[in-house]
Each structure stands twice: as C-alpha cells, then as structure tokens.
C-alpha cells in the first residue's frame, strides 16, 4: 500500500520534472536558433546603414531609429500619466464605486489584444484627430497599450513604502502632497523605474498596433517630424520574413533583425530585474 503511494509519487515527480524541463527547453531552443543564426549578420555596418537594393542588402538603421522614436514618444505620454494615476490610486482613492471602476478599466485595458488597440489608434488618432499614419499616432496608441503596465508597477512600488514613513511626516505637520513628493516618491522610484523599463521592451516588440497606425514597409530616409511614417524593427522583420520575392535571400538579415530585437528586450529585462533586486536588498537591510 505504502510502496504503491511511493511509486505514484516517483512517477508524478518524474512527470513534473519533465514538464519543467520542456519549458526550459523551449526557452533554450528559441534563443539558440535566433542567436546562432543571427550573430553573423550583426555588424556595425548592419546597425548603422540604410537598407540597400530593395532591402536585400545593407542594414536596418531606419528601423532602429523608428523604434527609438516610438519608445521615446510613448514613454513621454504613458510614464507621467501612469505614475500620477498610481499615486491617486494608492494614496488618495477611497474604496468605492469610482475606485472599483478605475481598477476594472485598468485590468481590461491590460487584457485587450494589441490589434484592437491598433484599430482604436487608426479610428481615433489617424482618422478622427487627423494625425495620419505617423509616429505620433503610433506612439499614442502604444502609450495606451503600456499604461496599465506602468500603473500596476508604480502602484506596487508605492505600496512597498512603509506606512510609518508617511505617518512620521504627516505627524510633523507636513501636508499630504509634500509628504508624497519628498518622502514616498523617492522611496518608490526604483520600483517605478523597473516598470517603465519593462514597458520599453513591450513597445520595442509590438507589431500589430503600429502596423495599423503608421509603420512603413520601406522608407529611403529617416522620419523628419512626428507626422512622418516610420520603419520599426518588429515590422521590418515581419515584412522581410513574409512578403516580397527575396524571402530566402534576406534570411540572414531577418535573423539579424530578430536577434537585435531580442537583445533589446532581454537587455532591458535584465536591467529592470537587477535594479529591482538591488533595491530590494537595500530596503531589507
């Protein structure tokens, strides 16, 4: 009887280990294929030169620049809004219908498919507000997409600041806002930065929303204003891998672009995680 239970346990744990092994294998296999095929394509010339000969040669400079613009544009909008929103929710909001509605809206925005954000951006920014297919439209669309991520991360950061900090400051006669500004925010900044950095990775990798709001197949020059169309890394990879007549010929460029994207995203994640753990240790000390 007991040995039967022990045997079952052995089998079950074996299966659990197998499952965990498979998940880790997925990560390794994907990373392996992209890195091993992509690294030979990457060079300074690949990063800093324009595509040539109908994108079959040359580099991906305009796509990198486009992605940078999107990151700057969407963060400039989403970061202040998200942080202020989080301050309201954690420091001011009373439990009730309004707060419940805000929380529900954030959860639903977070779960809305990115292609739906693309449709919304197309209808509102491109058409209704007349921004056209442009960096501006795409940045605003991406800003809404990452807003829930930034709000959640900032809320979490604010909640880790001990209550005593606030009470000590308030007891000294400091007003609520001054307390938040001088005591709570400085303590919460590392957590907020982590959230912001993680959403940079998200912006860099999103394709469907920018496909509908302004990403261009190919542009011979860099964008010159916020109303210009733009090239971006993820869309460039999609275009090279699926359309045109030279799909096989541009394979090395595709792997190179995928690897650059992967490097940006992983680098950003590593920075975010190390900032988080660095400050966690500091707080615990």
């Amino acid at each position: 009887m007991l040995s039967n239970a022990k045997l079952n346990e052995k089998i079950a744990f074996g299966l659990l280990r197998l499952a965990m092994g498979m998940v880790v294998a997925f990560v390794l296999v994907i990373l392996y294929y992209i890195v091993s095929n992509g690294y030979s394509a990457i060079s300074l010339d690949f990063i800093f030169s324009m595509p040539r000969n109908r994108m079959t040669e040359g580099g991906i400079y305009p796509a990198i620049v486009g992605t940078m613009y999107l990151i700057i544009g969407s963060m400039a909008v989403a970061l202040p809004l998200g942080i202020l929103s989080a301050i309201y929710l954690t420091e001011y909001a009373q439990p009730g219908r309004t707060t419940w509605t805000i929380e529900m809206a954030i959860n639903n925005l977070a779960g809305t498919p990115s292609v739906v954000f693309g449709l919304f951006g197309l209808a509102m920014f491109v058409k209704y507000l007349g921004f056209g297919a442009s960096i501006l439209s795409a940045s605003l669309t991406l800003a809404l997409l990452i807003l829930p991520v930034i709000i959640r991360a900032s809320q979490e950061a604010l909640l880790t600041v001990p209550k005593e900090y606030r009470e000590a400051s308030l007891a000294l006669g400091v007003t609520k806002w001054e307390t938040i500004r001088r005591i709570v925010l400085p303590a919460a900044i590392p957590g907020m930065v982590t959230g912001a950095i993680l959403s940079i990775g998200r912006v860099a990798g999103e394709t469907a929303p920018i496909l509908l709001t302004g990403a261009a197949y190919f542009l011979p020059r860099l964008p010159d204003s916020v109303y210009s169309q733009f090239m971006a890394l993820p869309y460039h990879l999609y275009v090279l891998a699926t359309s045109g007549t030279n799909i096989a010929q541009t394979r090395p460029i595709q792997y190179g672009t995928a690897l650059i994207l992967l490097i940006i995203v992983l680098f950003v994640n590593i920075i975010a995680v190390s900032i988080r753990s660095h400050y966690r240790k500091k707080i615990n000390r």
Partner: protein
Amino acid sequence: MSNRHLKEKGIESLLFASGIVAVLALFLLCIFLFRDGLLLFEAYPISSFLTETKWFPTSDPAHFGLLPLLLGSLIVTAGAIIFSVPLGIAAAIYISELAGPRTAGILKPVTEILAGIPSVVYGFFGLVILVPVIQRTLDLPTGQTALTGSIMLGIMALPTIISISEDAISSVPRAIKEGSLALGSTKWQTIYKVTIPAALSGISAAVMLGVGRAIGETMTVMMVTGNSAVIPGFPSGLFAPVKTMTATIALEMGEVPQGSEHFHALFAIGSVLFITTFIINIIANHIKRRYRFNL
C-alpha cells in the same frame, strides 16, 4: 494656511484626473471601435454577419461571415490551451513545491524570458523552424496549419499560466499542507489532494488569462497558420490552414479603402474580439480576487 490648502486640493484634482485616464481610454476605445463596427450593419445585415459561413470580402457580392474567423481563432486557442495548461501547471507545481529556493530563483526568470520575447520573433521562429518540421513529420501539403499556431501560442501562454498558478499554489497556507503530511500522506498525495484543490480558483484564473492572451495574439498566428478563411473541422482542422480574427484584421486593413464596407467589417471583427477578451478578463479577475487565503 488656506493657500497651502488650496494647493493641496488642486493637486488632488490633478491626480484624480490622471487616475481616471484608464477609464477614459477604455470608454473612447469602445466608442471608436463600436462606431466603425456598427456602420457595417447599415449595408450588411447583422444576421448574415453572425451566421454566414463565408468570408469573401472582395468578391461581388461580398460575404462578411464571422464564423470561419471565429472558429479559426477558437481552434487555434483550444489547441494551445490543451497543451499549455497541463504543462504550465506542472511547471508551476515544480517551481513552488519541488524546487529549492535557489533553483526556483533561476527557473522563474527563465520562464519570464518567454514573456519578454516579442510576438513577431515567435512568429519568425515558427515560420522558419517549426513550419518545415510540422510539414515533414506529419507529411502535410503545408506546414502552416492551426496546429503550428497552437504550438507557438501555447508556448507564449506558458509564462502567464506558470506565474499566476505559481502565485496561487504558493499562497496555500503551510499549515494545511503540514497537516496532510502529518497524517502520513506522501508529498505527492498532499500536492494532489490538498494543495492543488486549495489553489484551484487561482489556477483557473491563470488558465482564463492564458486563453485571453492566446485569442488576442496577432503576429504569431498570422505568420504560421496559413491564413485561409475556411470553417475548420475538429480535430482534422488542426492540420489545415486557418485564419483567425486577429490575423484577418492585421492582414486586410492595409489593403482596404477607409470607410468601405470591408473596412467596417474589420472593425466589427475587432469589436467581437474586444467583447470576447473583455468577458474573459472579467471572469478571470473575478476568480482571482477570490482565491487569496485570508488567514
């Protein structure tokens, strides 16, 4: 003093205004999405949209049947969930119950890498590596099938399922587990009969959010499922190309004149997609709120 008070009030109003920005965004999103979607039904009856079995947007007369696309999304999502749910839950159990703290500390960020990889990179990997493998091993005319999409989406849903399940399993109080072990149960019996049932609502929330993630995914499915709008059989449809709602929007929006019937049809599809994920999110968050143990 009153000046200071005024400033405080002013700042509070500003913060409130930023606080409701998410509500405002969701509200505008609904308005703009539904407005353009509903315009389709001025010219094309809603009953045909919901029951037609053909999506031929460019034929004359055009057919805008939702069914092939909806079923396309469902079959790809179902396939993804069938394999990623058991795998994800098993991995979550391993991380929270079997692995030591140091191993768990390595495994968690490794699975988080899966969440960080952009969907277009998954699509590219699927297209270049997995599609030929599927075609060869199953001896199919094309490797771009619903199954290929399911495998890629399953991998992409794993980090969501693992991290939320792991959270739910870890939040089961130790006292309950120790009680079971003290009665002479093996560790596995405890996991299977005590821990998992206690964490079940959290795990179901994880599964729901995984479904939401899979059904809304665009680039990956678009690159690996072949995009042919036919009503898939089950399970035979898994081995043939399908077209999902998301892929239809992303693929066809570039080619349609703005304001045309086809344009509005794509917004109608987007509205269906939005409503679907909205319901899934509400259910998931409702379950999630209830699972935490209050001891």
